[in-house]
């Protein structure tokens, strides 16, 4: 566990892999700061479309959606998601959306 500097004078706790420790500490500034750790310098509208959907799904169901559902709901193909988030939907997009680190064979 470590303190992660959001850059606006606040810090949040992250785990060894840089995932937010407490998903409720998430906000847009945290997302932008986490994005920089995953090769996303600036979050533009297309990023937010993915991040917002992940966030909404997570708050409703307590887990990330199936990747196919993410693609279908955002209208982005998987390779587009990889373009937006170089480290992929699970490690990249989910981290930026403040979800906890996925466990199991993910």
């Amino acid at each position, binding site marked *: 566990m470590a303190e992660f500097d959001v850059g606006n004078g606040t810090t949040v706790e992250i785990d060894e892999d840089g995932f937010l420790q407490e998903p409720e500490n998430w906000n847009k500034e945290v997302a932008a700061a986490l994005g920089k750790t995953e090769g996303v310098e600036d979050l533009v509208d297309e990023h937010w479309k993915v991040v917002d959907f992940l966030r909404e799904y997570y708050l409703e169901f307590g887990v990330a959606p199936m990747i196919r559902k993410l693609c279908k709901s955002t209208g982005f193909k998987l390779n587009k998601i990889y373009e937006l988030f170089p480290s992929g939907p*699970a490690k990249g997009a989910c981290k930026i959306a403040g979800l906890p680190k996925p*466990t199991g064979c993910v």
Partner: protein
Amino acid sequence: MKAQAKYSYHVEAVDGQERPRRFLEAFAAILEHSNYGPVLEHYTRVSAKCSRCTASCQVYEASGDPRDIPCHRTELLLKVYRRYFTLAGQLKARLYDYYTLTDAHIDEMAEEFWRCTACRRCKLSCPMGIDHGMVAHLARWVMSEIDIVPKALLVSVREQLEGKSKNTSAIPVAAIKDTLEFLEEELEEVFPDQKIKFPVDVEGAKYVFFPAVSDYLMEADTLMGNAAMMHAIDASWTVGTQNLDGIDYGLFYSDRMWERIIKAQLAEIKRLGGQVMLIGECGHASRSAREGMQNFIAPEDRVPVVNIMELAHEKFRQGKLKLKPDVIEERTTYHDPCNIARTGWIVEQPRVLLRHICKDFVEMDSHGVNGICCGGGGGTVSIDEIHEFRMMIGGKTKAEQIRKTGAHYVVTPCANCKKQVDEIIKAHKLPTNRVGLHDLLIKAIDFS
């Protein structure tokens, strides 16, 4: 006090005091209540340390590191056994002030036994027949009893056994149901006349379905193919919402966890009155269920364990699953998950199906029983912090093998292998697409 050493993988901060004593106590308890004792007794006598195993280890082939010689690694545990659990070792220790187990030795084991992918290919070239994969499993088990175990596996098992979700990916039931509805809608788009369903909590269904739960997040095509195949053969099957994860990481590091998980899975089959444990596309889930059923369940309580590829193959041979020939035009190859192929259990069945539906099916140079591990076996694929090792050492040979085939599709019917092969394809920039068997099968099913 935290554990002294920092390993290549994360561990939870634990009590690092008196580890040698606690290691030996755990080892003694395991030997007393298991049948590993006679095996180690034999191995300590016959181990020739001849290194012929190096010829078949893909980790050693890529790393050239003496630590990766299977019999060198096995000796780390045999040395402890010989010293503390054989009469000769105990005598020698008194007479000659011989070896004593130290923290440094434990740290060496902690690092080296997790560089092995437990694929058991080395067993094929060991003249003494030593199962180095089994020794790695046992060493990891002893270490896990003193809290040395990769955190990625530990937290997944904890969620499966003690969490609310009862599965390794912590997917709540509501999310599973939402996903199944979504997949049914997807299936309806492709097959509007078929009404393909994922039956949920159907009591008395013959087959209770246990895929790797990660499929519900990652593998839409595999699951849709599974459901389509079950629909085509008119099978009575169900997903049980109380326990639906086929994953059993106990196979990788602890008989104790292995037993608890298989018992929880079996309880769900009994709750539903099911007759057969049907495992999805997953190698370690299949082997952990099949061997776990034998090892840990009383004979009168056991149910048969069937992998879904076996079922598809059986129905195809009986003419009950109709598949259109040569539907897949692109070149296709098949990667054997070690846990189902090494013993020869599932080698031919998927190939019979693939040769029928693919126009251009090719084999990798070394395959089947002699297949080469994806490099993510033995639980290592879940450990993200060793990604570089999995790509450049563990998975190097597999990447070369896949490239040599020139295939458009590599069929990889295992959740572990799927994740690893996806990452290999990216890391080695292979021009290949990774799919599951049922991802292709669904394109060939003749529902008429």
